[in-house]
């Protein structure tokens, strides 16, 4: 495969960050050269373990996801029947979670856990970034921060979905969809914390805000808390659960939130640039990929070179 300029930059940068030896560099180049030019053929032909092959999330992120997952759903189930009490489902659901005397205690306790999870997450992200900066390995493109490339990826991905392009774009560790989701969740969490605090400490917010703003702020928070909760629930139910459970190839679920690992075919399809980094950082992955390509006779043959004898597939 002849890498695109973008992919080449990522590969070179990663090799520089990892201080790759000339021998390893040559091996990486050999593997990349052997990859078929059509990336679709690449991810269609690899062998993947459903519970994940390649590292994606640290144990901290898995814990934070678990905390957010449990607190979000329980907060929604204890809060929504109070906010939307006039609906037929509200009273039975409220009774199911122990009635308002119990559910309000659960709601406030789990809100504290959710805030802890947010703080824990910020510390993890900031700590990881500082560490990478100190090691000189920080790569902005590898982070969740939106970059202009995401807009191009979005456009290119939809061209593929509409059959106007034959390949999905070469996306990074976090693709446009995940960045939208992440910042929507971060914004939503912040709104929920501020609006929730305006219910719990209305005197505080009235005291710190100017007289002309305090009443409108409270009204906005009263609207925001249930609306944001409902929106988040719909986004989770219709989109996040689609992406991680129902999307083709992901059913019944992606195990990443538990194992921290992503499947090989998924990494290649939606995070190709990150897969290139994996080839640099995980020598075994180079071997495995080469074996798979040889076994399926998919090795791209550079002009004037003969194909090496295929070796048996190891997994």
């Amino acid at each position, binding site marked *: 495969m002849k890498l695109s300029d973008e992919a080449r930059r990522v590969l070179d940068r990663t090799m520089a960050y990892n201080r790759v030896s000339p021998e390893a560099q040559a091996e990486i180049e050999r593997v990349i050269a052997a990859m078929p030019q059509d990336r679709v*053929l690449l991810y269609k032909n690899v062998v*993947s373990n459903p519970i994940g092959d390649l590292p994606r999330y640290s144990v901290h992120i898995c814990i934070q996801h678990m905390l957010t997952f449990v607190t979000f759903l329980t907060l929604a189930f204890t809060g929504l029947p109070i906010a939307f009490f006039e609906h037929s489902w509200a009273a039975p659901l409220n009774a199911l979670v122990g009635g*308002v005397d119990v559910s309000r205690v659960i709601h406030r306790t789990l809100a504290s856990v959710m805030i802890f999870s947010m703080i824990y997450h910020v510390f993890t992200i900031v700590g990881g970034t500082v560490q990478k900066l100190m090691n000189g390995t920080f790569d902005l493109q590898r982070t969740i921060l939106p970059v202009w490339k995401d807009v191009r990826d979005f456009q290119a991905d939809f061209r593929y979905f509409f059959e106007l392009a034959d390949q999905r774009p070469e996306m990074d560790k976090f693709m446009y969809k995940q960045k939208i989701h992440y910042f929507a969740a971060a914004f939503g969490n912040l709104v929920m914390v501020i609006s929730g605090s305006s*219910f719990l400490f209305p005197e505080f917010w009235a005291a710190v805000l100017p007289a002309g703003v305090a009443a409108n702020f409270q009204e906005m928070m009263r*609207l925001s808390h249930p609306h944001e909760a409902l*929106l988040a629930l719909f986004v989770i139910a*219709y989109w996040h659960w689609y992406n991680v459970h129902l999307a083709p190839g992901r059913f019944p679920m992606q195990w990443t939130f538990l194992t921290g690992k992503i499947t090989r075919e998924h990494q290649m399809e939606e995070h190709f640039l990150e897969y290139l980094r994996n080839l640099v950082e995980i020598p075994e992955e180079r071997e495995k990929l080469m074996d798979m390509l040889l076994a399926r006779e998919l090795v791209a043959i550079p002009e004037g070179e003969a194909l090496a004898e295929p070796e048996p597939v190891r997994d």
Partner: protein
Amino acid sequence: MFAIVRTRREIGLVLACLILWPLAVPAQGAFEDDENCLMCHKYPKMGRVTDDGVFRSYYVMPHVFSRTVHRNVPCRDCHSYIKELPHRPVKVGVQCDSECHSIKNPATGKRFSHKPIYAKYIRSVHGRPKNARGPDRDKPYCVTCHTNPIYNPQEKQLPEHIVKRCVVCHEDRAFVENWYKHTSRRIREVKRDSRQIVQLCANCHGDQRLVQRHLKAARLEGRELGRKYPYAVESYLESFHGKVTHYGFKKAANCVDCHVDQDDYYLNVHFIRPSRDPVSPVSPERKLQTCRRCHKYADENYARLDPHPTSDIQDNPFRHYAEVIYGWVGDIVLVMLIGMALMETIGRWRDGVIWQIRKGSSWWRKSKRDRDRVI
């Protein structure tokens, strides 16, 4: 002429009593009916249809009345206009500021009366004469809220061990039972709970036909009504206080917690004034003080927060438009997300993906683009 009709009516009533005799409900534990009113009023079907087409029952359930707070008051202490039997048609009815002839206030020795409460009530925003006409007729009279309540309805039987103990000295069991009922009802809190209070107020303030009638009358008369009058109940239920009270939470403010001066609650609950009256606890002059009863760090800004929030454009345009925008954003986001998911599914499906990873891959179907997994 009138005398003849009256005579016929009397004969009719007496005949009706005799005919209905077999239908009478047995007077279990009946009160002392010295005036013999039950001779007629014990019949369940006794009543008449009013000019408005409403059936008015005149049935007195002896076994229930004997357990009510008024069971020791002879009928004619309140129905004082009855001079003979069968009595004349009732024109005004019982007025709750009358004085009892038979019951004396043991503290003052005077004839017992609800006059002090009535005097407050009649000056309140709800005050009205017994047989008011026009819009005032919608206002609550005493019996709208007070339905001659039964002593401790949950306490079907008096605790025998207590009664037996009292009887040792007080000897008369009937006296002991009465005294127990009288005191226990007052010692145990039998006030309506928050949810019942909201329901009671909502009976009128949540009745949109009644509310619209009064808005129209006030407009015609050039009278001022409270800004929240059209949405008093729905806006309370929209507030945090209302939402948790709806589920039976007891610590959040209900209607009377804010609208009644708590200094002398049992008297002042009959003296609710409109918020434009400086006497009202929710008047601009006293609102902060009322908020501070629960929210002790409340300040002037806090008192500006709306305890009756609505999204009505007339009442709060800011909230109205904020809600409209929220609705649009929510709808657009959902449509876009579902659209994205759909496009992604169709696009990848066309290229040969299957739902679940099987044997190490999820690309086992044939692609329309002629580039399939090597099998």
